[in-house]
């Protein structure tokens, strides 16, 4: 088990134990929207886009929960997520694994690269771009993501009294 899988397993256990069962259920158990584990690989995809590296991973920052919350409200978005996760899992089978989430980091990266490079009108390319856009939207609204980019936080109530000076390093 690599570091990322260890962290994710630990986080899942902790999250479920602390009562945050909704996301754990959504990614590992039958989806409330129908098919079993339809978003099982979503968390792994998010963590490929934003791994635990200079900052927390996307999962650690709660991003999959936000995506699933939107999916619960937006039928089109949910279909897109499901189709995208299916595509990821289909890619995993080339490695003899049934789920993208169970692949090694390198294999996950390879599949995401394929999505990024796919034709503009393809499902996987649209899935990649749409989810990445939303991942950034949620990730960088989480204070845990700010230290590594030296971002102090919301503009108010302090403002930037040092606006005329070089930034502090």
């Amino acid at each position, binding site marked *: 088990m690599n570091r990322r899988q260890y962290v994710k397993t630990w986080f899942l256990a902790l999250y479920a134990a602390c009562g945050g069962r909704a996301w754990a259920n959504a990614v590992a158990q039958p989806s409330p929207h129908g098919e079993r584990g339809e978003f099982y690989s979503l968390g792994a995809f998010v963590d*490929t*886009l*934003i*791994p635990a*590296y*200079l*900052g927390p991973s996307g999962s650690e920052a709660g991003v999959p929960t936000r995506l699933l919350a939107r999916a619960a409200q937006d039928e089109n978005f949910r279909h897109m997520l499901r189709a995208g996760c299916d595509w990821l899992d289909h890619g995993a089978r080339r490695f003899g694994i049934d789920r993208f989430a169970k692949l090694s980091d390198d294999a996950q*990266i390879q599949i*995401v690269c394929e999505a*990024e490079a796919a034709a503009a009108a393809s499902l996987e390319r649209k899935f990649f771009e749409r989810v*990445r*856009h939303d991942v*950034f*939207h949620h*990730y*960088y*609204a*989480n*204070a845990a*993501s*700010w230290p*590594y*980019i*030296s*971002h102090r*936080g*919301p*503009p*108010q*109530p*302090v*403002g*930037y*009294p*040092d*606006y*005329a*000076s*070089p*930034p502090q*390093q």
Partner: protein
Amino acid sequence: MTAKSQRQIDAIVIGSGAGGGAAAWRLAARGVQVLLLEEGPAFDPAEDYTLHRNDWEQSHFPEKIATRYRQSVAPLQYLEERWDDLRSWNHVRGRLVKQSRRYFGRYNHVVGLGGSTLHYTGEAHRMLAAAMRMKSRFDVAADWPMNYADLEPYYGLAESIIGVAGPAHDPNRERSAAPPLAAHGQSFASKILGMGAKHLGLSWQPNHLAALSEPFDGRLGCNYCGNCTRGCPRRDKGSVDVTYIPKAMATGNCEILTQTKVLRLVAGGNDRITAVVYKDSAGDEHSVSAPHVVVACGAVETPRLLLASANRHAPDGIANESGLVGKNFMETLSWYSAGLHPDRLGSHRGLPSDSICWDFNAPDAIANVIGGCRFTPYMAEADLIGPINYAQRIVGGWGKQHQREMRDNFGRVLAVGSIGEHLPNARSYIDLDPKVVDEDGVPRARIHSYLTDTDLGRLSFMAKTCRDILDAAGVSELREEVGTYDVFHATHVFGTCRMGIDQTQSVVDADGRSHRWGNLYITDASTFPSSGGGEAPSLTIQALAIRSIDRLLNKRD
């Protein structure tokens, strides 16, 4: 707000933006009983604005009435290969407009008490005198039926109300007095841009801004958060709701009804507006009359109201005897370029547009093109001042590489933007959509927009100069460029109820009064005969409104 008991109303003002707010204040301050009708709600800066929250960047101005589809739009022009250099793009998405026609982004406005001043950046500009003589000097647009000198005292008055900070002197605009507040300091990033501009032989000076450089009139000084467009929770930005409105209310002569939508004006057989019909916040319809009616709904919604109020006395719409209501629609012509500077600048800090280059503002300043423009820092206006937009538009990528680039690049964006003159043309106008009505059965305004080769020639100059300034400032790599060639995106709109002396060529006279309807005044930018060379119109709207009211009352007295 709730209505007071029935009382004598001397003037009805419709709309509470720059023009309506200023008009209501002046009327009330001079002892006139005013009823101000505003379609939108009031905003509470302390409660409604979200700049203190971790998710502050996820939304723009917190609209309470959605404006995205409030108007309809006629098909826009096809995009041509010869103007490919003016296509909008960014590092992550490539070209932003993939279709063959110009894309309708939005008519950027706010429906609420204070109007679009609620989300404006507070630029407080005076019109250049030369830009008020476009017809007689260049045979384009129309001349203003007044001189700069006629407006100058009203500019000073408006500046004192909203609290303008800026240089005491402007070589191109005479001032009888300095602004009430000293100019803001320029941000560190703006100073870097300024060095680039000066390297090219361009001027770069502090801008005039309705943002307080120190406490003033019971309001706090600015703390340079850079998010004026998301609403100012400190009330240091001089929006109408924290300036003209409280002063109007303090007179005891002004009643304000918010969430009150005017459905139509009623034209009578005596060339007077005999009633204003509105729907209140409970949805009930009312009719109110007053000796004077002032319309200030902006250059899109004012013509809509006038045209939609057609009746047997005004079969072509109120004040449309010349056929010009809705015509001569002028929009924001704009461009910005953004790129990465080699150094970390903290460029997300400081006021939007804190500096300005006026060198090309005059109508004949750009070679082979009529109509001027201006240049300012644009990081805040381009919304490149937070990590979400950096990630989505500037850095992109994913994985560890993305994180490294975010770490290395956050705060390094420099952007220069330009706003320029748009000349009226026959294909740019506002009319009533023949098929689409709103929830009250009133036809929606339909926007027709067209950019001529002259406009695009000006835009080309604007784009090139933005790029040159960035290059001279040390920007090594452009990451985003957005212009209004392929994306309609207008905040400043003008011209659709043009003022003038000739009744056949204008809708209102020099006082803003309808040529025919003696008790009808218009006090918004729809009366502008020309757009100016990029000047932000708010201060001029206010000055004109105050002047119109003084002229109205002087005649009455």
